[in-house]
């Protein structure tokens, strides 16, 4: 086993050592269901698709993914185990990737457990399963992007609550950056380039593109490079902060 896998395995099991995993999965499933049926109007829409379900994922992830990511490094620093981890023969990059993959895997598990939605919609009608698959992939990749932000912020503080709030705020900015509300604030005084850049940073825009069933390379590159960037910052944050 490589170091990344060993660390990921330990971290993944760590979620199940406490009630956190159970609480998280139950709440995630309850909320995805509630949003899809009550807010999204799954039944009244009269369409055999899961857009009512996926449409609320950015908003759910906004709160729930920072909750998964907040402990990744803050807890190690708080309890001092970071000194143990970083004096084992593991590179910082291995540790960052291992922890990220464990948490991402956990998000994937939670997402996979929403399969009754998929069964339901297939029983009720004949949806385009390609679109649903693309949406699941898009949702998973978007969760990874939220998570990379949360993991990086977690490495900057010993306090999990601060890590959660900061990460949720940054995730919110990335989610909302394409919304007219935010863009209006910049339009009129900021150069068009900046407004375009902000619009292109929006998770919503990219995610909505994917949920329409088209996995466009530019959306994949967007989320992929965002994850890579935040993980790179994560490595730096760990190096800078580990002994503080």
């Amino acid at each position, binding site marked *: *086993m490589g170091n990344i896998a*060993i660390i990921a395995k330990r971290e993944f099991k760590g979620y199940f050592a406490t009630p956190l995993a159970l609480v998280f999965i139950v709440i995630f499933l309850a909320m995805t269901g509630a949003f899809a049926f009550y807010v999204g109007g799954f039944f009244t829409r009269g369409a055999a698709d899961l857009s009512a379900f996926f449409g609320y994922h950015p908003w759910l992830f906004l709160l729930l993914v920072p909750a998964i990511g907040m402990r990744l490094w803050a807890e190690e620093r708080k309890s001092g185990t970071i000194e143990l981890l970083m004096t084992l023969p593991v590179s910082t990059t291995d540790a960052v990737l291992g922890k990220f993959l464990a948490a991402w895997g956990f998000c994937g598990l939670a997402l996979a457990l929403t399969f009754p939605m998929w069964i339901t919609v297939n029983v009720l009608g004949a949806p385009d399963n390609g679109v649903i698959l693309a949406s699941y992939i898009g949702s998973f990749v978007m969760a990874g992007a939220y998570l990379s932000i949360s993991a990086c912020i977690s490495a900057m503080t010993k306090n999990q609550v601060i890590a959660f709030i900061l990460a949720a705020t940054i995730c919110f900015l990335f989610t909302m950056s394409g919304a007219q509300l935010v863009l209006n604030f910049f339009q009129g005084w900021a150069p068009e380039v900046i407004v375009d850049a902000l619009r292109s940073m929006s998770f919503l825009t990219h995610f909505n593109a994917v949920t329409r069933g088209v996995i466009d390379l530019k959306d994949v590159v967007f989320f992929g490079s965002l994850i890579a960037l935040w993980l790179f910052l994560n490595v730096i944050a760990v190096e800078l902060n580990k002994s503080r």
Partner: protein
Amino acid sequence: MSERIALTNLTKRFGPLTAVDGIDMSVKGGEVLGFLGPNGAGKSTTMKMITGFLTPTSGTAHVDGIDVVSNPVEAKKQIGYLPEGAPCYGDMTPEAFLGFIADIRQLSGPSRKSAIDIAIERVDISGVLDQPIETLSKGFKRRVGLAQAILHDPPILILDEPTDGLDPNQKHQVRTLIQEMASDKAVIISTHILEEVEAVCTRAVIIARGKMLADGTPAELVRRSTLHNAVYVDVAADAAEAVATDIRTLDAVNDVTILDGAAGLQQLRVTSKGGKSISIDVASILKEKGHPASDLTTQQGALDAVFREVTKGKPIAGEGEVTHG
């Protein structure tokens, strides 16, 4: 044996604060080096640099010839490290935790199992293997941390306050363990407990304010004490001054101090010049002058007195308390 640990001009600054100031030191296989110093002297910081947790501001640290800064992963493979406070993953059981460490240490198959079994036996934690570490007592937590450090039978062991918070029996057990393992390893332990240094260390280094102030065997350091071979004797309170004057006539005697006494007796402390043995001289002069005396004892000189003498130098201007331990 060859040099296992070599530190050259090792320095660590935190902003304006110099926590470790140009330490040169080497430790050979078979040596158990006791790292002594007041809180904030730079002991832990030095250990953190050797183990690759902190990057030195300047200077180098080599373990088994491997540079800790340029080749950290290889260097860390040679080291078993017990950080201060023995941090462990509290939600894991000792069994799962040691399994994780064994995986990271690239042990597999039968050697993995035997390494874990040996470590468990050595620190005697077989009774608590399936309890979460956070529910264990301080002594057990410390021992789990030790098991983690010795698991891969490393040539170099760095233990930061390995017996802190243990009861006397556990302390004894850990000291025995260190001695057993020391035959071919280079071991550095940091401690505040000076008897521990005399009990387990072949060499003692005293540091304060980041500088090395003394380096020698514990016995050599004890000899530095001004109280080495000092003689204590009880005499009648009314004769104390006269006895003191008589003893001062001896060549080998440095000074006589009249200490407190009780019940008509007064204790005299006679310090020796250059640490020579003076008990016979003192006894014979008391006999010769006909002074009744009782309870004549010789003090070896205590390591803690040396420790205080060496570390209580004048504070260097502009230096504050080191918070990094």
